[in-house]
């Protein structure tokens, strides 16, 4: 059952091969057995999961089960879950039990899904390795000396390790796609506004987007069917009909125009990754696609622009964590200022504090025009690059990351080299378009991700292309050696 997909498990539940309670117990046992090593969960909720599973089985017995009824998943600990600790990977929220459900969580509950628990993540989603988590790093199931990527590293590790068949993630600069690539699974960052952000603890509001993570594109489509849609509680969510993403998975790729941005195949990139990505593209050609070169000339500006905009928004978004109403409060504050300083100084980790300081600086009087305003101008240029390229081709393809998973601790001392791991993913958040990472081979026995990027609301086309690729290849079926 380790490598079973959500689609296959749904089939098993439908045919009565196993019950949801049995299935849920299987994953709870896996978590018990393996998560001591992987540390992919911050909170496991066995009682709630089994109760949900039981309810799902009853629903099925009553003949009113839907596609997702009884399927276990996990939620990144950035999504608020009613009655369950929602820590966002931070000491600041270690004691925070959410009194409400995020819209995404509510959607899965409505669909009858079973929640196994909350997955590990970089603190407040700030990181590319899961090492900034207050709960310690999750580990890469392919090599437990390696990071699983981040910030949705717990979700990716749990799926790759067979501890859950699917999990939610969030992607602000690559936080779904990068860990998906490093752990050899499939993860989709939808168009900004496609999935509600309500109840997903904000890091950088104009970039954050929740999305699915699972073994296959088909599973991603099943999950996106549940997650996507307009939410009146999120002013930035878009009021557009949601298609059934599973219906177009088998469309032909004949005539699909693929663009390869030259900027994604140059610079500091592991040659094994380039080779695997090129092999994957030949596979698409075999499926009837045509390939041409495109240019995203402002790619080199994406990381500097991102590291102004995201910290600026974060510095404001994280102001609510002040020790006043919930979350961590320092012991015996002497006065208000002392309470603020020590609660925040002790409650936040190093990377979070670094970004709050960077963002505070960038928004300060006298610096706003030079930093924040300039970064917004660059953001428009980058967006225009994508619009231009996607007027010539249907899908842009390239590597998801420049390197495979790196060792724990390897990049900790050098934040900039850590930031550079997001070079191929980060610009897409600035542009707001959807992107998916699918497994396309290995480098040094570690998974390699192929990134596919489409125009606004091209999730159907991306999932279709990814699914067709997965029909022709078996990279996504590989599991870490036992």
């Amino acid at each position, binding site marked *: 059952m380790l490598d079973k997909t959500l689609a296959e498990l749904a089939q098993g539940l439908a045919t009565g091969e196993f019950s949801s309670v049995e299935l849920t117990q299987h994953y709870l046992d896996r978590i018990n057995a393996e998560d001591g090593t992987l540390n992919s969960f911050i909170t496991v909720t066995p009682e709630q999961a089994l109760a949900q599973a039981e309810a799902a089985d009853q629903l099925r017995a009553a003949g009113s089960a839907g596609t997702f009824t009884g399927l276990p998943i996990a939620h990144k600990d950035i*999504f*608020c879950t009613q009655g369950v600790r*929602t820590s*966002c990977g931070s000491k600041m*929220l270690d004691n*925070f039990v*959410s*009194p*409400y459900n*995020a819209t995404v969580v509510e959607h899965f509950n409505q669909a009858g899904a079973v929640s196994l628990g909350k997955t590990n993540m970089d603190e407040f989603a700030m990181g590319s390795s899961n090492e900034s988590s207050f709960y310690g790093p999750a580990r890469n199931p392919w090599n437990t000396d390696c990071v699983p990527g981040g910030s949705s590293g717990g979700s990716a590790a749990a799926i790759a390790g067979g501890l859950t068949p699917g999990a939610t993630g969030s992607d602000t600069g690559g936080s779904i796609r990068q860990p998906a690539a490093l752990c050899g699974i499939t993860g989709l960052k939808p168009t900004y506004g496609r999935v509600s*952000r*309500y*109840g*997903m*603890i*904000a890091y*950088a*509001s*104009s970039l954050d987007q929740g999305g699915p993570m699972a073994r296959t594109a088909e599973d991603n489509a099943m999950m996106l069917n549940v997650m996507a849609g307009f939410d*009146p*509680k*999120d*002013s*930035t969510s878009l009021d557009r009909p949601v298609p059934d993403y599973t219906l177009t998975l088998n469309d032909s790729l004949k005539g699909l125009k693929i663009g390869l941005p030259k900027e994604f195949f140059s610079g500091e990139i592991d040659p094994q990754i380039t080779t695997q990505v090129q092999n994957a593209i030949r596979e698409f050609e075999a499926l009837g696609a045509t390939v041409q070169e495109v240019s995203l000339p402002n790619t080199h500006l994406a990381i500097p622009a991102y590291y102004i905009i995201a910290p*600026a*928004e974060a*510095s*404001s978004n*994280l*102001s*609510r*964590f*002040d020790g*006043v*109403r*919930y979350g961590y409060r320092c012991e015996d504050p002497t006065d*208000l200022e002392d309470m*603020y300083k020590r609660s925040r100084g002790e409650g936040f980790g190093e990377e979070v504090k670094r970004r709050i300081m960077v963002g*505070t600086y960038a*928004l*300060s*009087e006298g610096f*706003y025009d030079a930093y*924040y305003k300039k970064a917004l101008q660059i953001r428009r240029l980058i967006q225009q690059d994508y619009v231009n390229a996607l007027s010539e081709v249907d899908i842009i393809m390239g590597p998801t990351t420049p390197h495979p998973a790196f060792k724990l601790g390897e990049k900790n001392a050098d934040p900039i080299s850590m930031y550079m791991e997001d070079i191929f993913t980060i610009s897409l958040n600035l542009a707001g378009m959807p992107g998916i990472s699918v497994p396309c081979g290995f480098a040094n026995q570690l998974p390699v991700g192929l990134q596919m990027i489409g125009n606004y609301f091209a999730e159907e086309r991306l999932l279709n292309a990814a699914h067709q690729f997965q029909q022709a290849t078996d990279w996504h079926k590989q599991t870490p050696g036992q």
Partner: protein
Amino acid sequence: MEWEAVIGLEIHAQLATKSKIFSGASTAFGAEPNTQACAVDLALPGTLPVFNGEALRMAVLFGLAIDAEIGYTSVFDRKNYFYPDLPKGYQTSQLFHPIVGTGYVDITLDDGTIKRVGVTRAHLEEDAGKSLHEEFPNMTGIDLNRAGTPLLEIVSEPDMRSAEEAVAYVKKIHAIVTNLGICDGNMAEGSFRCDCNVSVRYKGEEEFGNRTESKNINSFRFIEKAIKGEIIRQIDILEDGGHITQETRLYDANKDETRSMRSKEEANDYRYFPCPDLLPIVIDDDYVNQVRATLPELPDARKARFLEQYKLSDYDAMVLSAYRDLSHYFETVANTAGDAKLAANWVMGELSKLLNQNDTDIKDSPVSAEQLGGLLLRIKDNTITGKIAKQVFEAMWAGEGSADEVIESKGLKQVTDSGAIESMVDDVIAANQPQVDQYVNAEPDKRGKMIGFFMGKVMQASQGKANPGQVQGLLKQKLDALADG
């Protein structure tokens, strides 16, 4: 050299929406602490704001009422600072692109001249909660019921030159927002409050002096006192060779003085930037025209109409046109009684007196406009005298019935029987021989004034019920006969 004050005002008007500007929680005043604060108002992790379109409509209505530019694209910005009653650590406001741009209001000065005061802008923002320092020893309580209540911040140009002008401006804005029905105007509850920016300079100078800002003053009287006090304080300092520190000051109504809160150096860097959780508000001509169509008659227009339609004095027209409820009451009385001048006198006189004495809003007046009109009809048809009418009115106020019922039950009907009046007049003349002699011996042109004495005596004898016109006529006739005889 003569000093001149330069005053600019920032008025915070709470908009009378049912729910908050970014959440569905109620805005009602006076609930138990924190019972009207939802997840969004508490700034729980993950919560997001959703803009209340009713606040937009109200802001646009105000913009149209002061003939202002309307911001067809307005944007919410975050104003970042830490304070315990500011749950998100930022206030959502509009800095760069406000919903209302430049406009103006006209105020009437004491000498009757009209002065135009510029409105720089008006923008939407959310109110903060309240810190309660007194209830808990050594601790501060936080009540977030008010957090997220929509505010319209109305910023004036530094066009005012005296405390009186400032108060006239504040009253004008108060009258406009209450007439529009977008603010209840309740200053005691903080629904309408004012920050006063004051500086002084030598008259004729172009440059502004350093200014101070006195915050959150919540009555017309305190505004006047705070500004007057601040002008004197600044002039005293400057005349002693001192320097005015640019700072925020707090007006203490108990001590009637302002004191320093924080200086410019201690001021926050608010790090404004566009709120990424809210989309820009984009409106078009259709929307603006729809709102325009709902504009009610405003005080200036109504005053002009009152002057024209009811031939009121300028002062009466100004007072009676200022507030919708008052205007409506007056017009109903005037139309019922068929006498606008009499209606104006009664509404501004007896009615206002009792409303003030009982601290009652005109909406809650125990005597309805129709009832007061009915009373005035009885004066006009000589059923009662004006003096008796006051007695009847007080009985009506006390709930003793309509004018006719009170007149009937108390037997207050005017005496118009000329025989009865004549005998009272004769009695008074007979009983006051010294005054009669004075009258007879006086120059004819002085006699008119002297008749008042006899009037009073006769009215007293009739318990106020004698028809004053008849009494006067008879007195004059009889006294003149004595004089000429």
